[in-house]
Every structure is written in C-alpha cells, then in structure tokens.
C-alpha cells in the first residue's frame, strides 16, 4: 500500500458504504414514521407527551435511570419479556417516534419500564403500580417495597418540611427506620413530581397494526 490517495479512498469508501447500509437505509425505513390513526374514532397513537411528563423525561435521563432500566419489550421468541408481564406485545419503532431522547436502555438490573403507566391490577405484590404514591415511595425508599432491592434511594428528590396546617396529600407514608418526627412530613420536589409524571406516561400497550399482542394482557 504505497499510494496514499488509494488508501484514503479505500478507508472513506469502507466507512461510507457501512454508513449507508446501517444508518441511511434504516433511516429511510423507520426514520419518518407517523402516528397510527384509527379511521373510525380518530384514535391517535402514539401521542407526544408534554409539560410535566416531558420534564420528567429529562429527570429520568439526568439521574441515569437508563443504566438499569430498559423500555422495550422483545418479541416472544426473542426473550421472555411478555411472559414476564412487562407488556402484552412487543414494542416497535412507531412506539418511540416522540421519544427525545429515546431511552431504550441496555441493562436490566431493574425491571423494564415500558408500561409502568398502563392500567394494572390492584395487586400490591406487583412490582410497580399505576399509582403515584407507590412510585414516590419506591423512589424514596425502594426497600420499603422489596427488602432486597438494589435500587439506590433517591431521597434527595424529596424534601422534609414542617407541616403547616393540613398535611400534604402527597406526603409519603413513612414507617420504621424512615419515619420522620411528628409535625414533619416528606414531600416530593418538583423533580420527583416530574419523574413520576413521566413514569406514569409510559404506556406502550396500545394496539398497533404491526405488533399484535401475542399473550393475554397482564391481569
């Protein structure tokens, strides 16, 4: 290899061809998907989240939640996600068109969060429940739900304050080692509120033409 132009051209061509195959063609295929609109009742999915939930997405990213949690359901033959009752169908590209940034995640030290906000049973043994107060307590003290949880406590997303007048309806029901002195309460900060709003907005259970449910929805 004595010819410098030939070397540079070869390198560039290798890079460019791979780039076209792996980035440009998929971009044409799934880069500009639109929401699915139902003809009969104008049911649109997915919808963009905004306001508090959108701020919560930034909190989710900033706290590094994605280091341990995924937000994708694999098809039944690619992994046991559906049997695990994390979702009734696999997730597909259309589910994520408004996710900026997309938080698919790459580790499951904790459970998948694709459908935290989807309606779930009242059964309190479930790992997460469509209930802000459960989620607040989970963030403040994960071990009050699961004794062996390895999730770090996010107490700094909450504040302890003196109760003035009526106790806040958002105050955490803390007991045992977490209990606070009487006359005080622990309430979520704006960040915790946003994060929980975001978690509750996570719902990829809506039927899509390209991804039918392969198992009965979690009961």
């Amino acid at each position, binding site marked *: *290899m*004595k010819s*410098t132009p030939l*070397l540079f051209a*070869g*390198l*560039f061509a*290798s*890079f460019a061809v*791979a*780039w076209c195959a*792996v*980035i440009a063609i*998929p*971009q044409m*295929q*799934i*880069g500009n*998907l639109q929401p699915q609109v139902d003809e009969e009742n104008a049911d649109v999915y997915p919808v963009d989240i905004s306001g508090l939930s959108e701020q919560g997405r930034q909190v989710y*990213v*900033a*706290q*590094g939640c*994605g*280091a*341990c949690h*995924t937000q994708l359901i*694999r098809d039944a033959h*690619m*992994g*046991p996600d559906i*049997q*695990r009752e*994390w979702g009734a169908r696999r*997730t*597909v*590209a259309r589910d*994520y068109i*408004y996710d*900026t*940034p*997309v938080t*698919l*995640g*790459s*580790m*499951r*030290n904790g*459970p998948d969060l694709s459908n935290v906000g989807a309606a779930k049973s009242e059964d309190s*043994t*479930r*790992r997460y429940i469509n209930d802000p107060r459960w989620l607040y307590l989970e963030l403040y003290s994960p*071990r009050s739900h699961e004794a*062996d*949880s*390895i999730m*770090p*406590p996010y*107490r*700094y997303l909450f504040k302890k304050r003196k109760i003035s007048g009526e106790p806040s309806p958002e105050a955490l029901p803390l007991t045992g080692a977490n209990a606070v002195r009487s006359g005080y309460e622990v309430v979520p900060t704006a960040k915790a509120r946003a994060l929980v709003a975001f978690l509750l907005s996570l719902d990829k259970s809506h039927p899509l033409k390209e991804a039918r449910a392969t198992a009965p929805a979690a009961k």
Partner: protein
Amino acid sequence: MSAISTELPQNVLENAEAVRLEHIERVTIDRSARAPVLFFYASAVFWLLVQNALGLIASIKIQWPEFLSACPVLTYGRVVAAHGNIAVYGWASMAGLGTALWILARLCRVALPRPALPIIGGAVWNLGVVAGTLGILFGNGRVLPFLEFPKSAMLVLFLGYCLIAVWGIVIFLQRRPGEVFISTLYLVAALLWFPWLLAGSNTLLGWHGVHGVMQAVVGAWYAQNLLGVWLTALGLGTIYYFIPKVSGKPVYSASLAGLGFWAFIILSGWTGMQRLSGGPVPAWLVTVSISATIMLLIPVVIVMVNYLLTLRESFSLLNHSPTLRFAFFGALSYFVANVVFLIGSFRSVGAVTQFTWFGVAEDQLFINAFFSMAMFGAMYYIIPRLVVAEWLSGNLIRIHYWGAAYGFGMSIVMLLAAGVAQGSAQSVIRIGEGANPQADFMLSVSAMLPLLIGRVMAQVLLCIGNLVFAIHFALLLLRLGRPSADEPTLFGAKS
C-alpha cells in the same frame, strides 16, 4: 588474507556510520515527541485512576445501594456513565493518541513538526473530558452508551482531536519513501475513521437529525465503531509495531497482514446492531451485523496467526520484556473479545445475555483486556525513550502486570458469569397458581450479586496495580529513573 583484513574494517566503519545516523534520527524524533506524548500519557494515567475509582464506587453501590446515596452527584446511573466515558475518552483515547503519534513518527521517520500544537490539542481534549464528566455528574448527561457526555463536551473533544490527529496525518504524508508498515496503516485508519464517527454520530444525535429509535441505531453503531474500529485499530497497530520490534523479527507475512487490514476495515463498520437485537428495529439490520461479525473472524484470525508466527522463535522473550508481555496479553484478549462478542451476537444466546452484565463484559474485553494492556506495553517501551531514563524497578512493573492481568481477567470472568446467571434467572418464568413473574424478577438480582462481589475484588486489584504504575511513571517524570546507559528494566534477571 590481506584483502580480507582491509575489507572488514571498512564494512564495520560504514555500518557504524549508518547506526550512528539512525541513532541521531531516533533521538531527534523522540525529542520532538517528548513533550506532547508525555503530556498525553500523564493525562491518560490520571483518567485511568479516576475511572478505576468510579468503577469501584459503582460496584460497591450495586452491593450496597445506601453507599453515598445522599449525594446526587454520585448516584449510580451517573457514576456508571462517567466511568464508561472516562475509560474511553480520558484514558484509552489519550493513551492511544500519544502512542499513535510516537509510532507514526518513528515508522515514517519524521520528527513531529510543531510539538506545541498537539499539546494545545491535548489540553482542549482534557477540557472536553472534564466538561463531559461534570456534565454527567451534575445532571446534563445523555442516555446512549459512550455518548453520555453532553453534546457541547463532544464538540470540545472534536476540536481537541483535530488539533492532535492532524499531526499524525501530516507525519504520514511527509514520510520517508519506502515501505509503509502494517502498523502505520492501522494507525492512520484509526486517525481518519474517528473524526467521521464522532462528528457524524453526534451531529445526527445532538442536533435533532434523527428521531425515535433511529437515535438508538446511531448510538449502537457509534458505540461499536468506537470500540471495534477506533480503539481496535489503534491497539492492533500498536501491537503490530511492538511484537516485531521487541522480537527483532519482521512481521511474518506482510501480504497476509494487508489482507487482514482491509477485511477488518471493510467489515467492521457493519457490526454493532446486535446491541439492539430483539429491539424495535428492522430484523434485517441485526442480521446484517451478525453476518458481518461472523466474517470479521477472518481478519481476527489472520491478525492472531501473524502475531503468533512473528513471535514463533521468541516466546521466551515474554519472560523478560514487559512491553512484549503486556502487548501479547492484549493480542490474546483481542481474539477472545471477538469470539465472545460473536457468541453473544447469536439470537439464541442474546435472548439470555442481552441486557445483562454479559454486555458490560464484552465492552470491557475490548477496552481493558485488549486495548489497555496493549497501551501499557507501549508505555513501558516509549516512556523511557522520551525521558531518557529507565524504569526504576522490574518488581514494580511485575506488580502492575499481575494486578492488571488478574484484575482485568477476573473482572471479566465475573462479569460474564454474572451476566449468564442474571440472564438465565430472567429467562425462567414460573407459571401456575400464585406465580408472580414480576416479583420473580428479584431472583435474577440475587443470582448476580455474589458474582459481582468477585468483580469488586478484581477492581481493588486493578486499582492497586494501576496506582503502582502511576507512581512508577511519576517517579520517571521526576527524573528519578535509572540512567538510560543501563540495560532496560526487565522482569527478573535476564540470563
């Protein structure tokens, strides 16, 4: 009789003159490279220790979530992200750039034209790493692996990179006529590939070029190219330099090496989508990457065969030469890394190992067991030539070697085992009366935790080894080495 007696001294004289000129040339090159390369190495070693410390903190947090939990700056997700990014941009890239500049200067026989400019580039690059780290720790981080640095920090890195790498290319273009060594090809390829990768991917991601899942596609492609091309090409180029250099034998087959190089360059860009296997991407995309990874075994084997055959008569040197032993450990790890990566690529395996510590082990195999070890080897060779003094003690080098070899090795074995344990536990779904698949998730946590304790111990070993290395290096920088007229510092007594 008399004819011979007059000829011999003549030859010796000519040879002596050639040796002297070559020596002067090397000294000139080393002098030109001294300040920038030592600056890069010092920065790299500093970041190496920082990332070791962060890795240890993260590992402790997994076992004991309350550890430092009151400190938002050091929450688990941020520490992990900072650890991974500093490992690649702080330690590996700085070490790789320093090594690449020095090897290119030596092989092209060109002194670094303006040593001050790469130093400025290195300072800018360090600034980028600092900004990125602070960005992550104070809540400005992003979400894709190895792209957690805020985009502004990536811009700073890019500027710093251009100021550094352009000199590598300048040296290459000014090279003395003659053979272009295989090592040079790999290093130049790395230097040219990385800016496109960094700029292209970050432009698409940071400035809203792609939406939704395509961000993850770009991210996966970036991460794979970062480890599989940028670091790999730097590492292979370095090993291709030092194995022949230390053993005193030319590369066994130059044509085989060229074939391996082009196969590597053509195929590598197609790999990486396995990271999204089963995810919300077209299935063909993952299949393409799996196929490319299988074919990539060809250049991997070519490189390994070439290394081994070059060394075929010199394996005993591994007992003495620190450079060769580190580099050879790196070369073997390169092979293992690719095989493990290939195994993890298959969908049937991925169904278990995806989203587990197995993936962390794959990355660590490339970054640490392969690349870091190759860089340590290079540093043990290059630094004495730059400071014109020998390493103080073969025993300190030995402590570093065993700390790093056991540390990386055990850490990776534990991660692989933890990944398999975690993934297997997650694949088993109990059904029937009273079964609660969501609650059973905790079984995977209890399966992985004991193995990850092993990783903590490995990380402690690593910290010790690397700290010894850092102190040894600092002593050399403070001119406390042995005089360079002595023999190079080797393992044990050379017979």
